[in-house]
């Protein structure tokens, strides 16, 4: 059983580390893209072009996404740092195959989940919002292109690039929360189990 638990723990740790790395990359790309949307739009706003309102909405979305993505990036980095400590400890486990050490690491991961549960829930919300913003932004870029066809300011290449990037980042933003939710679901079952375990342990210790 310990061997199964150990292998399962390794696989989960790898998956969660990968999820964190993807999330950090997503956060970085989202910040960069949001800023790249804000800067040209702000300059265009000054010149008061026909697509002024589209630009204004795009700038606003960019500012919201940049703020959310930055918060997301910081949260991911914090979780990653704590996870890295646990990973260091788990490397020692590989040599010893010690059930007691494995139990200690499971306790640490459980404590990490209890501590980071509100952050994970917030992150899933941020990611969904940021993802939705990128998809709305893709729609705005497409609409701006159509408007540009009549006013003479349409640029097909930059529109295709802008829509594609926004859609891809938006899709990743909408996909990541489902992964975090699967992680949370796995740990929720364990937390519920630890509540029942408390009763058994308290009976043994004669507490309560």
């Amino acid at each position: 059983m310990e061997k199964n638990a150990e292998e399962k723990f390794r696989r989960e740790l790898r998956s969660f580390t990968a999820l964190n790395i993807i999330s950090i990359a997503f956060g970085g790309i989202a910040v960069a893209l949001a800023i790249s949307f804000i800067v040209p739009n702000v300059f265009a706003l000054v010149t008061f072009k026909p697509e002024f309102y589209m630009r204004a909405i795009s700038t606003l979305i960019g500012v919201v996404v940049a703020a959310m993505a930055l918060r997301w990036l910081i949260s991911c980095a914090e979780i990653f740092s704590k996870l890295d400590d646990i990973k260091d400890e788990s490397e020692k486990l590989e040599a010893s195959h010690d059930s007691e050490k494995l139990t200690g690491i499971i306790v640490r991961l459980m404590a990490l989940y209890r501590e980071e549960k509100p952050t994970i829930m917030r992150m899933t919300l941020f990611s969904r919002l940021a993802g939705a913003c990128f998809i709305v932004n893709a729609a705005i870029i497409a609409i701006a292109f159509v408007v540009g066809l009549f006013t003479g300011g349409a640029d097909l290449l930059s529109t295709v690039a802008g829509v594609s990037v926004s859609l891809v980042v938006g899709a990743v933003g909408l996909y990541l929360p489902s992964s975090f939710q699967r992680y949370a679901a796995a740990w929720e079952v364990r937390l519920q189990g630890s509540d029942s375990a408390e009763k058994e342990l308290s009976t043994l210790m004669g507490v309560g």
Partner: protein
Amino acid sequence: MEGRRTQYEIYWEILSFCKMPKPITQIIQRCDLNSKTVQDHVGFLESKGYISRTVEGERTMFLTMPAAREFLNLFMRIYLELYNNSPEFKL
């Protein structure tokens, strides 16, 4: 150890750490709790006969007693089962 733990998880941490005699400062450091909380937990475990204190020179050392074995084994069994029987997280 960081994060939120239940009192039983802290008891397990203290008892498994003190299988070799340990001073209170090392227990505080290991459990990442304040001195008062650790003293309370150690006091409770002492009252249950799970841990004993001995004075070595100028230092007071804490050692897990055989009476704690049942708790340690049950805790480990429950947590390993809990982990093994729960759904696995995959990307």
